[in-house]
């Protein structure tokens, strides 16, 4: 009868295991934020699991957030003033004609293995960043450098042909094709970060995307922090570097990057005191946060534009008057107020509003009367004879709401109907890259303040001008005149002219300028919201005297 008890014998251990699960669980826990405030550990919500931490392989913002802790470029951005301040370079000269930059490196700059950071490190790293076999998707951002484009596209295989010269161990000279007033800020971006040659080569070819040099234990960087732990989909931890030249200024002992995709989950973690800083805030939660006293919610104008793409090759949008009518019949203020709960800024131009040093040309206001006239002139009086049109967007609740409002708005103002279709992201990219749409949406967020970042999208040569728009004067300005113009005032005037062409021709219909939105614990100091939405961890500190914000109820 021994087997008779077999079933019952299981019950005891099962219950014990379940009990152990419970007992191990129900204890009082100190939150991440409370412990972090005390120990100087910053808990940062960072979107998705980073693809790579190799600065010449990465391309997304979670990766960049980490790279900024692990590496330092020649220059870096001050989080308060947004000005470029010394990074590895302690000073720099710019030639009269604006085409030659000479960087003087800080002799105290060190890699995390204590090797000095040299001008040759930068030269080699920039060659690597441009090398066609590495497949760096951001290599094009360095094409302002003499010979860079030819080298990156394989037309010239000699890296010496690129205009980067080492004058001595601590002096680097970079020659440009054209005077570029924003080149200094380019030299603070991650495609220009140096990587440690001996470490990279110890783990494979210099153009090997798969090399293991970025793993914990192998990694060598030159930033204020070093890599100390990387658990897939769980966390990536960086700790204060002992060799960083400006280590006295760094007050955080560690930053923990939490990969959290869902804004809802992130918000719950914030309320439970698990995060100092969230990457996102769910739209539906924002009014509640805005209404609070001492709210942890931070909103700031961001260098990003949400716009519709109009396929000018397709009927009925091949008629300029139809495109203009749609633009005039779009009440941006209403979209922002109703759908977006006033969390974004209406914008009728492509370049984000209040871009420093630049003023977009005026765009016509909301004018349904004039829109109806234009539509009638195009052959659709009161919407009569309208052939219909599909608006396609990538699946997202907010995009759908905006689409529905536009559908109603144009129906009421113009008497025309559009149908809505959503597609999963990669399917959507395929659709718009093939030009297989009539009307679609796009968001564009820039990592610098140069208006050209936006205006270059719509040149004939651009790989992301998906509208079929092509204009000779526009191309002349953006591809020849503006790049060659050394005077920033004149350069901006040229760009205003170009943008006016866009607003007249309407290959795109801008809707709003983005705001960045975060939840930030009150104990976090030195992380001001800013127009590029970047944080410089070197300046961040945590005040242990300030209690953890844990929400109300």
């Amino acid at each position, binding site marked *: 009868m021994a087997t008779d008890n*077999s079933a019952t014998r299981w019950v005891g251990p099962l219950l014990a295991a379940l009990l152990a699960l419970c007992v191990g*669980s129900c204890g009082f826990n100190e939150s991440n934020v409370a412990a972090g405030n005390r120990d100087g550990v910053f808990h940062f919500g960072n979107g998705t699991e980073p693809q790579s931490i*190799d600065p010449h392989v990465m391309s997304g913002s979670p990766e960049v957030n980490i790279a900024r802790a692990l590496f330092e470029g020649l220059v870096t951005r001050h989080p308060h003033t947004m000005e470029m301040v010394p990074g590895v370079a302690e000073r720099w000269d710019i030639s009269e004609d604006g085409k030659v930059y000479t960087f003087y490196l800080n002799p105290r700059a060190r890699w995390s293995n204590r090797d000095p950071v040299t001008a040759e490190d930068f030269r080699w790293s920039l060659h690597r960043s441009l090398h066609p076999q590495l497949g760096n998707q951001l290599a094009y951002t360095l094409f302002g450098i003499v010979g860079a484009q030819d080298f990156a596209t394989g037309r010239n295989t000699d890296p010496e042909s690129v205009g980067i010269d080492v004058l001595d161990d601590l002096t680097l000279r970079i020659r440009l094709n054209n005077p570029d007033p924003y080149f200094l800020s380019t030299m603070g971006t991650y495609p220009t970060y140096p990587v440690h040659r001996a470490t990279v080569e110890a783990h494979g070819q210099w153009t090997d995307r798969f*090399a293991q040099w970025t793993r914990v234990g192998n990694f060598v960087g030159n930033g204020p922090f070093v890599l100390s732990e990387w658990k897939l989909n*769980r966390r990536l931890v960086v700790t204060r570097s002992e060799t960083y030249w400006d280590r006295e200024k760094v007050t955080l002992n560690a930053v923990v990057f939490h990969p959290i995709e869902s804004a809802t*989950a992130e918000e*719950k973690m914030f309320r439970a005191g*698990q995060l100092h800083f969230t990457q996102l805030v769910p739209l539906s939660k924002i009014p509640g946060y805005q209404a609070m006293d001492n709210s942890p919610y931070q909103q700031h104008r961001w260098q990003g534009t949400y716009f519709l793409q109009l396929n000018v090759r397709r009927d009925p949008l091949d008629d300029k008057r139809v495109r203009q009518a749609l633009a005039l019949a779009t009440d941006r203020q209403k979209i922002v107020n109703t759908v977006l709960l006033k969390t974004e800024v209406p914008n009728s131009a492509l370049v984000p509003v209040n871009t420093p040093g630049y003023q977009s040309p005026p765009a016509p206001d909301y004018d349904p009367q004039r829109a109806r006239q234009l539509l009638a002139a195009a052959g659709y009086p009161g919407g009569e004879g309208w052939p219909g049109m599909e608006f396609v967007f990538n699946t997202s609740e907010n995009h759908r709401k905006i689409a529905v409002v536009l559908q109603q708005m144009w129906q009421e103002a113009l008497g025309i109907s559009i149908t809505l279709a959503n597609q999963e992201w990669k399917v959507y990219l395929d659709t718009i890259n093939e030009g297989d749409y009539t009307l679609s949406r796009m968001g564009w967020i820039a990592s610098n303040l140069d208006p050209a970042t936006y205006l270059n999208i719509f040149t004939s040569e651009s790989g992301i001008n998906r509208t079929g728009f092509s204009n000779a004067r526009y191309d002349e300005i953006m591809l020849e005149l503006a790049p060659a113009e050394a005077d920033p005032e004149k350069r901006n005037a040229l760009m205003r002219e170009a943008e006016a062409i866009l607003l007249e021709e309407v290959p795109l219909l801008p809707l709003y300028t983005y705001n960045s939105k975060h939840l930030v614990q009150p104990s976090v100091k030195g992380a001001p919201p800013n127009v590029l939405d970047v944080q410089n961890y070197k300046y961040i500190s945590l005040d242990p005297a300030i209690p953890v914000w844990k929400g109300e*109820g």
Partner: protein
Amino acid sequence: MWRFIGYRLLQAIPVILAVITVTFFLVRIAPGGPFDSEKAVMPEVKAALEAQYRLDQPLFSQYTAYLGDLARGEFGPSFKYPGRSVNELIGAGLPVTAELGFYALLVAVVIGGLAGVIASLKPNTAQDYIPMTAAMIGICMPSFLLGPLLVLVFGIHLDWLPVSGWGDIPGDKLLPSITLGSAYAAYIARLSRAGMLEVMSQDYIRTARAKGLPEWQVVTRHALRGGLIPVVAFLGPAFAGLLAGSFVVETIFQIPGLGRFYVQAAFNRDYTMILGTTVFLSTLIVLFNLLSDILAAWMNPRLRAQFGEQ
């Protein structure tokens, strides 16, 4: 018995081969590719990337090369995470998902089994209706609703348990295990109730009672073993289902398991990762089905005798 196992294993080979083939070609047919981006990708860069992943070769030779990799136990490099192989990603996610699945199964068996047995002892009374109604609600309640509800109550309002994570803070394993296990607990409750009801009406139970055994001994020593056979048969597919279907719970609770990798892989068009995970999970499902068949045979003398004769 061995012949049965061998036969079933042989049967599994064409099944898994079909899974590989269909998945391989399906993911390639899906619109959008791993290197599509809202940013402009230079043709030179795209060509370099495609060459690194053999995408520049004809589709059929990619397929045969992939089968060759599989034969060596290699799932290939991930498209999304350069420098990580699919083997490494599965290796990172599987222990977490398996642990979660194990706890969820524990929750399911203990809670479901107890509820089912209790209900079966007094059929059609309150003792039956209450647990069975709860089970019905459990089956109907999807995990994407139950999870956030549990988080709101126990994580935010009462502040007893962590709202997310896995193995970082004591107690963070409890809510996900309950969330994932509850739907299965409900099934097990219904299965064990039905099984027990059938067994309790058998002659040998009447004999046991006639011998003067107390009722609890009749249940634990005589009825349980027979009554739980349907539950055991359900355990194999259930565990496989827990492994393959935990992605919702993993997403709600930020658990670094296989399910999240799997779903992300599909969104990212990470061809090798989609394939690797699919092949791996389908192999597991086949194996677990086999295991539960063997276990059921071992517990059921009639089936055992049948295999013995073969």
